[in-house]
């Protein structure tokens, strides 16, 4: 932790006149070369954190360390961070090459070197030959690339991206997602991006920091966040799932209202209340009854979604959601009686570290 490249310590931002802080004692850190996603619903404080790191907003308290050095008091223009704005913020009165060259001019880089580095940056984002174009002559995706080139050409300590894909249409978004990941990997720059889109965060980031109402809920790899959510918020914000309230009846067994006992893997004191979650794709069609964690019910609702079939199965008072692969033999119909099972290790105990 202490040798991490970027360390955020107890960062707080309270706007004047506000009842509650927008960012409330948030701490996290990134090793060099990592890509971190700040994920959360709008208004959760993720953009405020990004702008505080950039120096565009002054924190109320807390520290932002780069290689151990607190940069909180360094003005924006001396921080040497690259930022890609949501609307790109390319300078409309300059050509693409002039836009990219701007940061180098500010650093008093000589003309010859500037031209060379601009050319390399254009190559990096696959915009070779577009240097003389006006910004208005570029498509949305090309503007995005130009903005990335402009922020990387200065060889920033840290690359910040504010909702980098939100202004692109669906197809371009997938393309740019891989592209950004690839550019970041090739340059090895440490990067933080803000998003409200969980798919974007899960697929692009090395680690995710999930935020809610100004607080950091959980930080971890995409797998940890998805499979081992530590809070109710994270469990319900990322992915779908069926939630169960219950009491621990014995070691690894929970008594759940309206269902047979649910087996899980994890430490929980007998008698204590627990919250459990099962992801829809973890529920499988069982061949026979009697396996642990099998639930028999009637299919109430079916949604066909191409690769998967989403079933809503009524088991007693509970409605279970299951995603079945559509290639799995004979598919159940509405009204069929089916038995679903889930392996104990696929039952997530919310709020506990993995056993």
């Amino acid at each position: 932790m202490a040798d991490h490249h970027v360390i955020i310590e107890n960062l707080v931002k309270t706007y004047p006149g506000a009842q509650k802080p927008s960012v409330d004692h948030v701490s996290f850190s990134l090793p060099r070369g990592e890509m971190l996603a700040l994920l959360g619903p709008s208004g959760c404080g993720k953009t405020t954190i990004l702008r505080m790191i950039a120096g565009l907003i002054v924190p109320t308290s807390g520290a932002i360390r780069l290689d151990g050095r607190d940069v909180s008091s360094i003005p924006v223009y001396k921080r040497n961070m690259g930022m890609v704005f949501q609307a790109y913020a390319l300078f409309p009165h300059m050509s693409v090459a002039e836009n990219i060259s701007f940061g180098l001019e500010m650093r008093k880089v000589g003309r010859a070197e500037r031209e060379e580095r601009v050319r390399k940056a254009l190559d990096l984002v696959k915009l070779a030959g577009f240097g003389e174009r006006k910004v208005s002559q570029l498509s949305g995706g090309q503007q995005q690339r130009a903005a990335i080139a402009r922020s990387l050409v200065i060889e920033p300590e840290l690359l910040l991206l504010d909702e980098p894909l939100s202004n692109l249409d669906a197809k371009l978004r997938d393309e740019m997602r891989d592209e950004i990941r690839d550019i970041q990997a090739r340059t090895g720059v440490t990067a933080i991006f803000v998003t409200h889109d969980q798919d974007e965060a899960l697929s692009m980031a090395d680690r995710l920091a999930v935020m809610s109402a100004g607080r950091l809920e959980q930080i971890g790899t995409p797998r940890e966040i998805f499979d081992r959510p530590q809070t109710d918020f994270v469990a319900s914000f990322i992915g779908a799932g069926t939630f169960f309230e219950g009491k621990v009846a014995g070691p690894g067994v929970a008594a759940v209202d309206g269902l047979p006992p649910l087996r899980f893997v994890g430490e929980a004191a007998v008698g204590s209340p627990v919250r459990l979650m099962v992801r829809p794709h973890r529920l499988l069609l069982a061949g026979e009854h009697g396996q642990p964690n099998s639930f028999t019910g009637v299919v109430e609702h079916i949604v066909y979604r191409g690769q998967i079939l989403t079933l809503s199965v009524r088991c007693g008072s509970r409605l279970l959601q299951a995603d079945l692969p559509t290639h799995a033999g004979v598919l159940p119909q509405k009204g069929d009686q089916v038995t679903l099972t889930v392996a104990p290790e696929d039952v997530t105990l919310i709020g506990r570290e993995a056993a």
Partner: protein
Amino acid sequence: MSAAVTAPAAGAPAASRGILLLLLLPGLVALVVTFLLPLLWLFRASFASSAVGTLSGGDWTSEAYTTVLFDPFYWRVAWNTLVLGFNVAVFAVILSYPIALFLARTQSRFRGVLTALAVAPLLTSSVVRTYGWMVIFGDRGVINSTLQALSLTDGVIRLTNNSLGATVALIEILMPYAILAMLSGFGRLNVQLEEAAAMLGANRLRVFTRIVLPLSLPGVLTAALLVFVLAISSFVTPRLMGGGRVFVLGTEVFNEATVTLNWPLAAALSVMLLVLFSSIILLYQRALRALEV
């Protein structure tokens, strides 16, 4: 197949063009009656012979233009007008720029109120405001009596009845127009561009010189043009503040039309003013295109 598809598509614009013309008709009629006809009449009048107080009929003569073009007095008047317009435009723009920039960039919830305050002087007639300046600048006005009471000056400092007074008063009177024109021309300014420049290493001065100033130039140019045109066509302020000693095209047209009753000459001077306007607007459009492309 393709013909069947294109035929109605080709018919639709023709029909909507008809409707468009119909919608334009009232405006066009009003413009012809109130603008084009008087303009033609003015043009015709400038070629009439100079009988006092009348336009004598059918003959065409370039007498008025001969007077305008060969009398050095009118050349001086034209020059005075240009100098006045230039000075007023430059200073009104310089003084209005920070105000307009502030109004365009502020996040304050009083922004609307402040903008209204900035242009509120337009609610009073420029005649009233000119008299206001006479009260301040007059020989026994606020400035002179204060200076004398403090024994800072012996005599009277002449601030009215000369072009200085006219210039200062016009600057203040035309500033609201400059502010409005700049606000509408600052559309490309955007706080995020300033932030982006700062992130790239530009300090506040450089953000201003490299981003804010270039992006605000179209607004500055529009404001300068508007103020210049309003200043060179102004009549009340140069007349009152100049006390008859400031000769500009506006006051000369008035003199010839109502005092000397030489209507052809007044018309010829008006045409001259018109030519001046047109050439300046042409220049402006060229400059704007160069800035925005």
